[in-house]
């Protein structure tokens, strides 16, 4: 045991003598782990935003077969029929907690690229704020119904130009004033711009039609009652889903794609890093052949030589992995980005370096270190005693 620690100590302490090769290994492992963590941070961040968006006790009503709000059209009468459905919660005045909504896709200038990108201008009714968890006005005030005023989600302000409090902004041929900013705690709605439903219908010639109706349920289970009611009512042709389901259906794609790109890429890079580590450890054994033979001569076992080499390799890989985690965490964690989401509008999200992805990165690093060290280790264990005489 003492032998083992002595040899491992010698190996590790002599790393600086092979600085070039050792740094090359550390760097290659670091880049590989960084690529993995980078992609996973994007995927996890996006997923977190989507998963944080839906509630179980909010029902979303869309035109039958439309699949997404963007494709849906509902008439005024639909809202009146839903109002009286069983299972819909009411507020202290006895009014149903529901909001008929309509969004028009408008252009915003993305800060990062200075190009136009799609943003949802959502017309909502008063109860809309009670239908989103953690909704709060973070600056300014709520819009006045009937006037061309906007409240803007914090995600939009982060990623897009010109939506700061007090600004006036032209969307098509209409001029709007930003009177407030809001947050829903990092959900999809933070990537939206809100105003009064009637104003959107008016300014964008939508008559009295809406796209979706959201309503608070008395309990998550009440959705079945609502569904039965809708199916039994001949005048309604609607799909009813819980909001959580609605977002779960529309979310998957991008996060899955990112993981499907990130993992194979980092595994391919791992093969490169593995070749590098192997090469480095071979050189390490080569340069210490005499030293190893000497140790063997004075009674150290082949196993200690093997372990010394293997541990050296693992240490290098671990250093690389740790370096990558540190750098990615400092540079990436919490960074804001946006991409085109299910509603054909931008979804702003923050990169999330999660514990799970850190562990995945370390495991990948250790695997490279282990595989890269094992064969050179065997070679170290087999160094002939006669090598003492080698020059």
């Amino acid at each position: 045991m003492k032998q083992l620690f002595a040899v491992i100590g010698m190996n590790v302490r002599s790393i600086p003598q092979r600085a070039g090769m050792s740094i090359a290994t550390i760097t290659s492992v670091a880049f590989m782990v960084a690529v993995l963590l980078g992609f996973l941070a994007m995927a996890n961040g996006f997923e977190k935003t989507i998963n944080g968006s839906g509630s179980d006790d909010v029902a979303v009503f869309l035109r039958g077969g439309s699949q997404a709000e963007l494709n849906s059209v509902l008439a005024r009468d639909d809202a009146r029929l839903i109002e009286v459905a069983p299972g819909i919660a009411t507020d202290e005045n006895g009014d149903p907690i529901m909001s008929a909504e309509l969004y028009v896709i408008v252009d915003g200038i993305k800060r990062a690229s200075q190009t136009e990108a799609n943003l949802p201008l959502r017309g909502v009714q008063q109860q809309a704020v009670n239908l989103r968890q953690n909704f709060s006005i973070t600056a300014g005030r709520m819009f006045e119904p009937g006037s061309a005023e906007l409240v803007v989600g914090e995600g939009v302000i982060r990623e897009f130009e010109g939506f700061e409090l007090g600004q006036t902004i032209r969307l098509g041929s209409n001029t709007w004033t930003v009177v407030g900013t809001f947050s829903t705690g990092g959900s999809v709605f933070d990537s939206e711009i809100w105003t009064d439903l009637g104003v959107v219908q008016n300014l964008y010639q939508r008559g009295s039609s809406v796209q979706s109706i959201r309503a608070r349920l008395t309990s998550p289970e009440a959705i079945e009652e609502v569904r039965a009611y809708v199916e039994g009512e001949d005048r309604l042709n609607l799909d009813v889903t819980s909001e959580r389901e609605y977002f779960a259906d529309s979310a998957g794609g991008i996060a899955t794609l990112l993981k499907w790109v990130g993992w194979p890429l980092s595994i391919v890079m791992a093969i490169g890093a593995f070749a590098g580590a192997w090469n480095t450890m071979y050189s390490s054994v080569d340069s210490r052949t005499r030293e190893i033979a000497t140790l063997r001569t004075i009674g150290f076992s082949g196993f200690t030589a093997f372990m010394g080499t293997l541990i050296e390799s693992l240490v290098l890989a671990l250093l690389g992995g740790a370096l990558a985690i540190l750098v990615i965490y400092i540079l990436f964690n919490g960074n804001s980005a946006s991409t085109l989401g299910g509603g054909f509008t931008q979804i702003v999200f923050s990169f999330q370096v999660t514990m799970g992805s850190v562990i995945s990165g370390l495991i990948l690093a250790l695997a490279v270190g282990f595989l890269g060290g094992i064969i050179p280790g065997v070679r170290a264990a087999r160094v002939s005693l006669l090598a003492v005489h080698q020059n």
Partner: protein
Amino acid sequence: MTEATLIRKGLFRKVLRAILMMVSIAIAFFIFAVLGAVNKAFNAGVDVAAANRLVTVNAINFTVSMPYAYYGRVQGVEGITHVTHANWFGGYFQQPANFVQTFAVDPESYLDVYPELILPPEQREAWLTTRTCLIVGQALATQYGWSVGDRIPLNSNIWQQADGSSAWDFDICGIFTAEDSSVPTNYAMFHYDYFNESLAFARDTIGWMILTTEDVSLNDQVADEIDAMFANSPAETETTTEAAFSQAFIEQLGNINLILTSVIGAAFATILMIVGTTLVLAINERTKEIAVLKTLGFQSGRIFRMILTESFLLSLIGGGIGLGLAAGLVVLIAGAFQSFLPGFGMPLSVVWQAFALMIGFALVTGFFPAFNAMRIRIVEAFGKL
């Protein structure tokens, strides 16, 4: 012993080491070539854009429609050769998951504006005269196994006919291809009239217009004139070049170019470190051998050239393997990617870039070892233990 043998012996002095370096190099070039091909496919919309082609959309956003009357008014603008219009159909085949990119277009002018689309003469005739005709791009036809003469229904997840149905019946009367494989053919088109007349709502609107100008120099003038024509109306317009429009759309997805470049950069930084340090080390080990060569009368320049040739061989063999594997993979999966990444294939430009990189890489990694080898002094080398 010829010089070639000497170089080979030098390179494979330690076989395993040479192989490991080649593996590292192959991996980096593999990543470069695959991601390069992906990037190229993403930017296909920008690359295939005609310089004199403009897109007019509603100034609110390109998803917002505009009155059909605009089409007639734009036709009168001076400097325009052709104008056409299109509507997004939001189509799917049988099940919503079977998404089919479909546009309702003006049949004749659309082909005028996109001359790169090829339709055999008799199919072209059928397309112009058959009201229920659907022409399908080659990539899409392959994906669903459709051929000319098939009668298929397509559903829309947006539009409804006056009778409440969301399915339109079509006769596939043509399959179009493109001159250049990078031009997407993963969509289908049908007559605007057939679409418009059966609509339950939003009749007489068009999604966007595409037009060609007489000359690139007229682009700005034409765009300004169109947008000025509809200024202060409920549906103002925004006219940009096709390339700018495509570029903005790619940017909506995110900075794909930056992501891909970072990954490629990481891969190359890695092999630069690994191969660079290994080669320096390998030449150091050979100090004595090189001194022997010099004693035998090898000139410094010749030594320099021989060592550099080794790094070139290393880079070209490793890089070539990586490039070959990448090309194989891309060809293998290109079919599966056609529907959402049309034009995915191994572009020649990426292959040339890879070769340029191999040469650059060989120079960078080989120069210092070769330079050191050239400067080895016989007396000192033999004095070294």
